């Protein structure tokens, strides 16, 4: 008979937190299924394999380099002095997580969460760039994202960086706050998706010569909607664990976080369904699925700091943003985003960041005061647009110059499955006549 050592309260708290962290890969699974379902059948296996590769490469690159740049509050970091204040801009940990004891400490549990959440963030650009992004380019771009882009911004928000210290240094509320990763995971991933769609250009046949977009429907709505349900479970873990580890939230707020997460997603999906139903006669399944994810994303930042009514309001606005931003991107900017990652993650992520400043009520345990919180959130948005977007665009532009990221035109028309994998996802079926004729 094996005797277990007696668990201390901190061990039990760490174990519970780890259980929440273990739900996070379901968010990645949900996003991967959505990306596959929203693409064409001829690229389904390629998209799913790319999702697996992204999850693996992101974890490895984060372990080797990213963890050294991100770290956890209270750990060694580099600071520069501006205006008499210390600006903590990057962590100073050794590579390979060698400076961290992987025990039940909050830093170790946070490292476990980050290994998964960097994969979720890295999956977001796949939704926008699918069906024309080469597998090898995907792996290299993901490595750069997980080793540098994600950890740098996540350090500023979650690692005790300068954005988190805006409250104590400059009296801007409690500093930039984001419990579940609306900025560090979703907005960063969504802006990278935007940069990639600009660099890669639209899929062949998406836009006619007069720039009118052609409808290229997803091949499996069931996968998309099932993916939505999986994302909910992943988000419950992500928001709860993120709030406990990075936002100083007490365990007694977990029920409120779960309720807010679900209500935000539900309100957003219903709003999108009502808007599309009113405008097009029938609700649009793919847009409603994007509305669901948009609601989850928008609610991530504020889930621990708002009452349920505010969570519903945040979701309603997110759900309304989805169809209009999809139209803006397709009709006015000729941006081809098959998975809807830019509206759902970038635009709703930015809305979620601002919503925390508008609706948030904060516990007295947080350092700083309540006034100026919206300004701190606004500076976070300014950093995303003015620093993260140019940086991620520049890095991917450079990668594209060294190793072209876009598949050749004939390979793209043949389908990424045959072009890059040599076999279809559905070899025994011709699922769409459109697929058949265009080959």
């Amino acid at each position, binding site marked *: 008979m094996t005797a277990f050592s007696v668990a201390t309260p901190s061990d039990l708290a760490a174990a519970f937190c780890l259980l929440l962290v273990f739900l996070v890969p379901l968010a990645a699974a949900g996003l991967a299924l959505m990306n596959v379902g929203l693409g064409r059948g001829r690229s389904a296996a390629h998209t799913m394999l790319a999702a697996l590769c992204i999850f693996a490469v992101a974890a490895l690159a984060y372990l080797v380099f990213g963890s050294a740049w991100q770290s956890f509050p209270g750990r060694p970091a580099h600071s520069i002095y*501006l205006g008499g204040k210390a600006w903590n801009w990057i962590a100073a940990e050794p590579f390979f997580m060698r400076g961290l004891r992987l025990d039940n400490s909050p830093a170790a549990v946070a490292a476990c969460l980050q290994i998964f959440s960097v994969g979720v963030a890295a999956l977001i650009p796949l939704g926008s760039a699918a069906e024309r992004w080469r597998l090898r380019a995907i792996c290299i771009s993901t490595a750069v994202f997980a080793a540098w882009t994600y950890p740098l911004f996540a350090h500023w928000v979650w690692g005790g960086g300068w954005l988190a210290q805006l409250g104590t240094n400059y009296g801007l509320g409690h500093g930039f706050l984001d419990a579940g990763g609306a900025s560090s995971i979703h907005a960063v991933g969504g802006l990278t998706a935007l940069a990639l769609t600009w660099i890669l250009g639209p899929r062949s046949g998406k836009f006619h010569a007069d720039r009118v977009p052609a409808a290229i429907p997803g091949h499996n709505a069931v996968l998309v909607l099932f993916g939505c349900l999986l994302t909910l479970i992943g988000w419950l873990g992500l928001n709860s664990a993120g709030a406990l580890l990075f936002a100083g939230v007490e365990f007694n707020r977990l029920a409120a976080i779960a309720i807010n997460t679900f209500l935000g997603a539900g309100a957003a999906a219903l709003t999108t369904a009502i808007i599309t139903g009113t405008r097009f006669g029938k609700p649009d399944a793919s847009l409603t699925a994007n509305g669901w994810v948009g609601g989850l994303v928008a609610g991530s930042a504020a889930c621990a700091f708002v009452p349920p009514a505010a969570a519903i309001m945040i979701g309603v606005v997110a759900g309304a943003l989805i169809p209009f931003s999809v139209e803006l991107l397709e009709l006015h*900017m000729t941006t081809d985003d098959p998975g809807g990652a830019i509206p759902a993650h970038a635009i709703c992520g930015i809305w979620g960041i601002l919503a925390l400043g508008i609706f948030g009520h904060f516990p007295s345990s947080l350092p700083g005061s309540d006034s100026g919180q919206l300004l701190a959130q*606004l*500076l976070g*948005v*300014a950093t995303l647009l*003015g620093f993260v977007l140019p940086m991620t665009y520049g890095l991917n532009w450079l990668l594209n110059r060294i190793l*072209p990221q*876009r598949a050749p035109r004939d390979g793209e028309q043949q389908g990424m499955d045959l072009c890059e994998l040599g076999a279809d996802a559905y070899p025994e079926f011709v699922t769409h006549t459109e697929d058949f004729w265009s080959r």
Partner: protein
Amino acid sequence: MKFAGFLLLLAGWAIALTAIILLRAAVPRNAFLLAGVATECAGVVLFARSHIGWGGEKE
């Protein structure tokens, strides 16, 4: 146009950061922060417009 958009994005961030560092009074600080974000929005629009019609394919 792409380069101008790129510069506007960076300039907007610089304006927002400088407002936080240099200005103490609430009204000018908030005004400059908003001006920085507005500059970035103009940068995003220019950057996006520079990609309209780009096919992405290298023949």
